[in-house]
């Protein structure tokens, strides 16, 4: 199809999409209104289990099975990326040059923010039930904090700080402990992911029962997933190079096979 024909088709499709979206949106309740039936139900359920953060209550209590599916998607995508980013035949691994030119101010900021970010990440994961945050957000903060070392030119230190075999184990352990907490609920109360742990008083660190535990399990899986993902991409950029003897690549080898 020529580019011109494709643009005509695109315009037609967009016009159709605009009409469908407009019809759909006009049937919605007006923006900012007071009627939110799901909100009222979710807030009531959140109070029943003494969970101060209603978003975490939805994620880790009311819809915990969905969150398990979501976490599985993340772990599966990490496996997919790892499979896609294997070194191909004409590549070999090289030592990454530790002497990357980095500005002194960047080094200083990295040294200051590396511990601070890790601490904030742990805080966000641990207090997921009572303050804004939770396993997903905290996990990403933790993984980002770890990769500040790369920004600061300390790639070798980063490699030492993230032993990938260990992170592969903690990723799986996060997923397994998530479903284990759910199965414990099934065994004790007869419902998958029922909140069987005593919920304490709202706003305390030990409140909300399983919400905090599930948040920690997710945090463990997310931090490992992000670290493994970024390790794969950094490897592609830094540690892999083409074999020098491989000859000129004409891009048709796959077709000939």
């Amino acid at each position, binding site marked *: 199809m020529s580019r011109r024909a*494709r643009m005509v088709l*695109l315009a037609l*499709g*967009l016009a159709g*999409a*605009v009409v469908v*979206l*407009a019809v759909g*949106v*006009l049937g*919605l309740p*007006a*923006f*900012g*209104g*007071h009627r*939110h039936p*799901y*909100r009222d139900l*979710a*807030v009531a359920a*959140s*109070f029943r289990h003494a969970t*101060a*953060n*209603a*978003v975490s209550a*939805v*994620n880790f209590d009311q*819809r915990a099975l*969905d*969150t398990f599916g*979501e*976490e599985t*998607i*993340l772990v*599966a*995508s*990490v496996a*997919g*990326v790892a499979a*896609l*980013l294997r070194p*191909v035949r004409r590549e070999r691994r090289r030592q990454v040059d530790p002497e990357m030119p980095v500005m002194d101010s960047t080094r200083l900021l990295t040294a200051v923010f590396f511990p601070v970010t890790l601490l904030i990440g742990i805080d966000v994961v641990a207090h997921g039930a*009572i*303050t*804004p945050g*939770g396993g*997903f*957000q905290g996990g990403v903060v933790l993984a980002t904090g770890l990769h500040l070392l790369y920004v600061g030119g300390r790639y070798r230190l980063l490699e030492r700080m993230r032993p990938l075999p260990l992170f592969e184990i903690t990723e799986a352990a996060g997923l397994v402990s998530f479903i284990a907490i759910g199965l414990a609920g099934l065994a004790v109360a007869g419902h998958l992911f029922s909140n069987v742990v005593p919920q304490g008083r*709202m*706003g305390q660190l030990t409140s909300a029962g399983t919400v905090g535990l599930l948040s920690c399990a997710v945090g463990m899986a997310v931090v490992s997933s992000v670290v493994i*993902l970024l390790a*794969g*991409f950094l490897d592609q950029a830094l540690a892999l190079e083409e074999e020098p003897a491989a000859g000129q*690549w004409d*891009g048709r080898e*796959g*077709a000939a*096979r």
Partner: protein
Amino acid sequence: MIGFLAYYPYAVAGAIVLLGLVGIAISRDLVHAVVCLSVCQSGTYVFLLAVGYQYGGIAPIFGSTVHRGTPVVDPVVQALSLTDIVVSAAITSMLLALVIQIAKRRGTVDPDELRSLEG
């Protein structure tokens, strides 16, 4: 005027999705196409949060200042946007890994030059 404002955020969400689609369609670089897909998905975040908003509502984190009766925004759609973001990150990483492999095998990331099928 009130009628316009009542649907304006939804229109913004729809516009972001459609702009992302246009970007994918006219893209000459697969990385650009992947980023445009992320733009599309950001439209869904805006839409979800717009659905759950209430004028005067505050964040649904209860504590000493926010009580049972305080008007809060909808936590359900916020949780859904979180799910959305995680899935979006998973998809983006998979697609970028695919782009890397395409670049290695074919030596180009221009979708127009990647027409022939290859086994």
